[in-house]
């Protein structure tokens, strides 16, 4: 997600960052390009304007242009301005109340409310061990209530029995009663899609709110939404009140500018991202991490966290050293493949890293995908230690032997080697991006053992 925008903004500010001297004109040019990139990503115009004005003001205000690394400073300013827009805190769903906590799903037609209701129910019941009741108040769209019932059954969550002919308020009353009587922790109310400018239906939504007194009012919005995200969010916020946002269809190639607009307009945190049609495709959202990602700086926090959760610290550290200082061999690759597999695959790993949008595509082209990782491991394990240390030893006959040992074709071995060299190249590129000495250089010589320090360093450095 956000990749298009990420790559574009990254490139724009990268150019600025590499300069030793920059003028006011350079900043104006960069911001003009950034404006187009943001607008093409569907960030609302007023939000884009705020952003460019803020960055320009700050960049020209202090002694930025005369400082040692003016480009880097401007990037930091841009980064901070994005953070301002996105907010800095990740807020969980507010359901720690006297049960039942009521969650109201709201949004335009077809934005993904019903699907998201089921996903959130599954998340709360599975991960958070809450007893959840789903109820559909959608009496407008044909088979809408059936849709929620089917999904509820699929995720193993209770749903309110359908009573034909009952109106939304009637269903709400019944749902509240059922939730109280049957001891549910959370009641999720799915509503019919409605246009923000449809006075009657917005009034209906307000009436439902007054009756249900929801603790969360989640506005569900399609990530592909254009400038209308602003209008829609404003109306829903004004007429019903919104406490949190959900952005759906992030599995597509939308540049996701709506995320910036929504946050800026409603001041509400984005709480979840929908990343697919399946009920598992839900991510808890971290607003504070997005700015880095949008500016092409990588979601370093997520990376560090993910690493911490799946690999032990010393190993992770060793891996980082190898990756960022160079000199890793096939042996390391095998070790890494194993770790990478644990961390959700190489492509997901690289997505977190600064400025590697393009490189990621190259890797994709080179077919580094997670299914082949296990096979690659087997190939490497069929090599002698010497071969693993020096891939250039591998001639035709050795390859045949290895292929046989791993139960694969010679071309698989060749592919692995190609990828290995490809990866070496990639890491060289990453190192170059990070400046002389790689990560180590950034940290003043030694590899720090404290992820937070690494992080702080990275943030300052970029």
């Amino acid at each position, binding site marked *: 997600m956000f990749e298009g925008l990420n790559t574009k903004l990254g490139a724009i500010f990268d150019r600025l960052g590499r300069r030793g001297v920059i003028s006011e004109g350079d900043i104006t040019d960069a911001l003009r390009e950034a404006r187009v990139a943001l607008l093409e990503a569907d960030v609302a115009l007023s939000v884009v304007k705020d952003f460019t004005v803020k960055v320009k003001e700050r960049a020209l205000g202090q002694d930025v242009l005369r400082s040692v690394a003016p480009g880097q400073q401007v990037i930091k300013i841009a980064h901070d301005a994005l953070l301002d827009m996105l907010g800095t805190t990740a807020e969980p769903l507010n359901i720690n109340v006297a049960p039942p906590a009521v969650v109201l799903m709201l949004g335009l*037609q077809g934005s993904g409310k019903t699907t998201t209701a089921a996903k959130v129910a599954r998340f709360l019941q599975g991960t958070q061990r809450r007893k959840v009741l789903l109820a559909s108040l959608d009496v407008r*769209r044909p088979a809408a209530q059936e849709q*929620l019932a089917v999904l509820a059954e699929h995720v193993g969550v209770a749903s309110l029995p359908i009573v*034909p002919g009952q109106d939304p308020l009637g269903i709400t009353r019944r749902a509240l009663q059922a939730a109280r009587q049957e001891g549910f922790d959370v009641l999720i109310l799915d509503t019919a899609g409605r246009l923000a400018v449809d006075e009657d239906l917005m009034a209906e939504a307000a009436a439902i709110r007054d009756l249900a007194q929801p603790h969360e009012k989640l506005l569900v919005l399609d990530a592909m939404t254009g400038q*209308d995200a602003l209008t829609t969010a404003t109306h829903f916020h004004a007429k019903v009140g919104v406490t949190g946002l959900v952005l759906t269809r992030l*599995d597509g190639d939308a540049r996701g500018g709506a995320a910036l607009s929504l946050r800026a307009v409603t001041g509400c945190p984005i709480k979840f991202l929908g990343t697919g049609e399946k009920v598992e495709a839900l991510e808890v959202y971290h607003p504070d991490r997005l700015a880095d990602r949008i500016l092409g700086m990588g979601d370093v926090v997520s990376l560090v966290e993910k690493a911490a959760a799946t690999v032990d610290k010393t190993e992770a550290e060793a891996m980082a050293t190898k990756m960022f200082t160079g000199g890793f061999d096939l042996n390391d690759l095998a070790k890494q493949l194993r770790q990478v597999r644990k961390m959700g695959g190489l492509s997901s790993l690289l997505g977190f890293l600064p400025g590697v949008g393009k490189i990621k595509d190259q890797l994709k082209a080179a077919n580094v995908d997670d299914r082949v990782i296990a096979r690659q491991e087997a190939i490497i394990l069929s090599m002698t230690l010497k071969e693993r240390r020096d891939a250039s030893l591998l001639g035709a006959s050795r390859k045949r032997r290895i292929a046989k040992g791993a139960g694969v074709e010679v071309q698989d071995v060749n592919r692995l080697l190609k990828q290995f060299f490809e990866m070496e190249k990639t890491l060289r590129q990453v190192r170059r991006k990070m400046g002389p000495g790689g990560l180590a250089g950034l940290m003043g010589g030694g590899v720090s053992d404290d992820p937070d320090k690494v992080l702080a360093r990275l943030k300052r450095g970029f």
Partner: protein
Amino acid sequence: MFFSSPPPAPASASAAAPEESPRASGGWLARLRSGLKRSSDTLSSGLKNVFARRTLDQAALEELEDLLIQADLGPKPAARLVKDLGATRLDKTVTDAEVRAILAESLASILAPCAKPLEIDPTKKPFVVLMVGVNGNGKTTTVGKLAHGYREQGLSVLLAAADTFRAAAVEQLVAWGERTGCPVVVGPPKGDAAAVAFRAYEQARAEGRDLLLVDTAGRLHTHDNLMQELAKIGRVLKKIDPEAPHATLLVLDATTGQNAHAQVETFKALTPISGLIVTKLDGSAKGGVLVALADRFGLPIVAVGVGEGVSDLRPFDATAFARALVGLEDDRQSKQELDMSCRGDEEPST
């Protein structure tokens, strides 16, 4: 043309579902106007503020560009349009109405070549229409609206529920079948979508139907496997007639911003697209990306959706759309023009 037939008496199916939008009282022309009006409200009020008696200087042009951007035209097309405008008018004093008219004209001239209704070839029995697009943009609803319109015209219509994936998608189409009096061919849940389409095609042929409307599952253009599933539906239909599907309609949601480009591009690369249907134009979204799409792809825009009811489908009228986009539907004269241009559409086109 089917969209122009008078609104029918509400069908008896599903009492709870809205047959017409609640605000739909004043007949379809009023609805079209109110739909388009909402689309242009922001733009319109903005324009009024900007252009009441002033010189068309650089600042004024920039504000105009902003307004077009807010209508989702996209930053580059907006800049180009405004530059063209400036080239002819810079530093002249113009009135509000003048600027709008000029702008509407240039927008309309881009859109006009694309305003083409769907031609149903009566020699194909049935004429097969495949409905495609990303998730939730209105495919199933539009199938229902089309079924209604063509049945009103006296065609015999069969529906195929080839969305076997989404929960209750089949039930949704079946409800539309009841509402419009058209039978629906369904398959087993999670079954093969292509098999349903194939069976429906065979049945429609056996029954001598005029039209087969195939509803497919929503799919993001970025998901290769789902796009391949769509290609398979096309291949299977071709087994019966190499020319089938005789039309593939790509549905676009008017709320979509610049991603519509990628959608059209990718779907078009997979399968020939006969035309676009733009839904949800009754909302606050302006659908301005259509201008850039028209310019870039030149695909016919066969109809627009302006509500959730059976008769909320309209022909695409480039002039009315363009004028409404710049807020010109307010004055009496343009109302008359809109009337005229719509009345012209009432003549059957086939």
